[in-house]
């Protein structure tokens, strides 16, 4: 196999990981697990960026990956803060309880 196919397979890997992360978000009711699955999705997106940057030989892919990681870190921080709030309020971290915005 040549080098070129590696890039393609890296993309496929990114797609697989993305979909696994999506499954995790959809299935789990525990808020922490949802955040973890979101991390997996972000990771997969970052892999796609790296692979593209490598294919073009430019640094842009890694810059995007840097941005993605920054985003993930900030989002995790805020998300976990919200988890703590949720726990203090409802004494459980079931996101199905957060359904007051319905109608």
């Amino acid at each position, binding site marked *: 196999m040549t080098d070129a196919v590696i890039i393609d397979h890296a993309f496929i890997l990114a797609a697989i990981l993305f979909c696994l992360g999506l499954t995790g978000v959809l299935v789990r009711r525990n808020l922490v697990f*949802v955040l973890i699955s979101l991390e997996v999705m972000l990771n997969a997106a970052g892999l796609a960026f790296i692979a593209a940057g490598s294919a073009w030989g430019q640094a842009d892919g890694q810059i995007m990956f840097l941005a993605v990681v920054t985003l993930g870190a900030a989002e995790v921080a805020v998300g976990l803060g919200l988890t703590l709030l949720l726990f203090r309020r409802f004494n459980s971290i079931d996101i199905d309880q957060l359904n007051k915005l319905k109608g």
Partner: protein
Amino acid sequence: MDILWLIPTLPLLGFTILVLSSGRMPREKARVVGIGSIALSFMTTLYIATQYYAAASHGLDHGAGFTVSLWPWIVAGDLNLNFSLYLDGLSLSMLFVITGVGTLIHIYASGYMWDDPDYTRFFTYMNLFVAAMLMLVLADNLVLMFLGWEGVGLCSFLLIGFWYKDPENGFAARKAFVVTRAGDTAFAIGLFLLFRELGSLEIQEILHRATDEWEVGANMPTLIAILLLGGAVGKSAQLPLQTWLPDAMAGPTPVSALIHAATMVTAGVYLIARTHPVFLLSPTAMTLVASVGLITLLIAGFTALNQWDIKRVLAYSTMSQIGYMFLALGVEAWDSSIFHLMTHALFKALLFLTAGSIILALHHEQDIRKMGGLRKQLPVPFWCFLIGSACLIALPPTSGFWSKEPILLAAWEVDPVFWAGAVLGAFLTAIYTTRLMILVFFYTPEGGPPETHEPKGWQLHPPLIILAALSLVAGAFQLPAADALPHAHEHHPPLWVEVTGILLPLVGIFIGYQVFLKEKWQGLRMANQQGLRDFLAKGWGFDWLYDALLVKPFLTLARLNRNDLVDLVPKGVVVASTQCYYFFSRGQNGQLRFYVATMAAAAIMIISLALFT
């Protein structure tokens, strides 16, 4: 003549002031505005009359009138209408009646309605009515007359239903409005035809062109005349549209006096008199007018014999007397008809106002079975009612005699059947009037006469006395209308005709005296035949007939049509939007995972769209 426009404007101004005061005006001021506007109108009429007579004595052309054009009104295509007023003898006579009798009735009403909380509203409506009626009689073109026509219809509705808190009054007002509406539609169609055929709607224009255009007995003038007659019978409560007048007595008594005795119900007579050339072109229509008048006066006469409400007796009596006016028009006794209109206005207003005094004195009691023997307790009403009844029965030398006799004689000239019916009507009039007089004033029931209390207010007696005096002497006046209308032919009937005409009412008085006071000949009383009594008392079943023929089918259709096709559209919109609401609100269940799943599904759809198209 320049101030002719003041005559309808002054009551309109009174109306505007009273409306804008919106009930905050104290009663003393309101009555000054209400009475004052009509009184000023009357004085203007007097001034205009002097000018008219001055011009007439300078050799005015017979029947010509003065036109005062105020401003251009409707200009559309071939139609060119001005807001213009026309004065001739006919309209001058009507002006005297409306403003003169109107002023007296307003003065009376200011005392009669004193205790009513809606005092100002009453005068507001009355002023509007007088303004509309004056517009009607002064109109130079038929559209302006129609404006006044509709205006008086509206005010009649407002005033009949004056005490609106009782729904029965509202029903009576609505009935009046709807029934006259049927007539108004005929009138309007007649107007359309006149415009289409003759190209103009100005009255004098029409009357000249009509005689040029059509010959006697042609179809078009017959049709138009019948349509105009339809409008007239609606407003004047003749057959077949007479059912509203007895129920209209639900309004206050001054309203009944002004609108339903003296002025509005005479609008039909005025219309036919005004457009008489068109009618003269159609002998069929003339016969129809006379027949309608005749039949109505007989029906009303028989019905008045069986009424127990004093105002309803007077209402049917009005219907009957207007039948006389229509009969007179139909037999070409034009000036007699207008003369009878004038005298009738005087003595009928007198009778109604007197009835109002009696009603007030007996604490709003209107049933004559509960009255009796009142002549000692209520002297002024008694004498006024006596004079009014004498005029109604047409006893010489009251004005009623001078106006009714020519009608009888003219009827004889045209057709003896008309004469016979008219004389029979006079006979019936005598009987029911005597019955009314006796039951209210003479016949004392076992328990003695009922309690009366003198109503307070200086305004109640003077108008009665003035009207009584006028009714007695009005026979001496020469009517200005005589100039505007074609002269009747000279009558030379046989002597026995005239004698019968005078004697038969006297026989009627005698019969009434015997039956009701002396209580003999009780077999004649229809009180003993219940079925006949009910039939006659309910106006010969017209109410029932119209209810079955027109009202019930209409209501059934309306009820069937309640959920019709057109309703489906808005209802469908409602149902559709409600269903959409239910459908879409299920997607807002607040579950985070559901939202993510929908986002994923949407992403799938978008990507597949991007890939495969």
